[in-house]
């Protein structure tokens, strides 16, 4: 599940939701909703998450 993969990648980078959100320029709630699969992010935001966590789109978002 991509939902857990984002969380795992974030934890692997030793980042909290707050820290990741701050780096990307979104709110913590948005990160939380993406991890839960309750918000469908734009490609731009997906790429920003990938760049920050040093992963590819396939790694984080492809089922």
């Amino acid at each position, binding site marked *: 599940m991509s939902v857990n993969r984002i969380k795992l990648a974030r934890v692997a980078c030793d980042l909290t939701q707050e820290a990741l959100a701050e780096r990307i*320029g979104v709110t913590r709630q948005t990160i939380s909703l993406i991890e839960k699969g309750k*918000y469908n*992010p734009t490609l*731009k935001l997906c790429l920003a998450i990938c760049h920050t966590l040093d992963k590819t789109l396939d790694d984080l978002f492809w089922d």
Partner: protein
Amino acid sequence: MRKIKDERLQLINLKNSRIAFLFQMIGLLAILFTTWITKGSEAAVDSPVFLLLMLTCSLLAFLQLRVSVDMDEGKKKRRKPLPYVAYVFIALATGLLMAFILYMLERHDPFDALFIGAIFFICSLASYSVVYLLRKKRDKHDE
């Protein structure tokens, strides 16, 4: 107030603005309807609220011009576009017909009838020209 950078919040903001706009529109229409019922249609049209409504509708229509789907159906069903002269004739016919109707049926001054007919001609020709250019551009693009 800080500028919202979060795309999710921007979307929510947009949705909220839409709801507020809808509420405002309903309010405007309600005010106009009340004025129309209590003071008559002339008072409703004279009211600045009516002008605001018309301007809002025009602005919305103008902004929506860029938000459009292709009106023509598939390539198979598409007819061959008429030559530009045909559009000029159609526009001319529209203008003359309007001038004729105004002169014969409404008993307008001949100069006024011709003037209004000319306005109809120019407006029709302008819109037909835009359609013609768009079709030509797309046909060129399809080739």
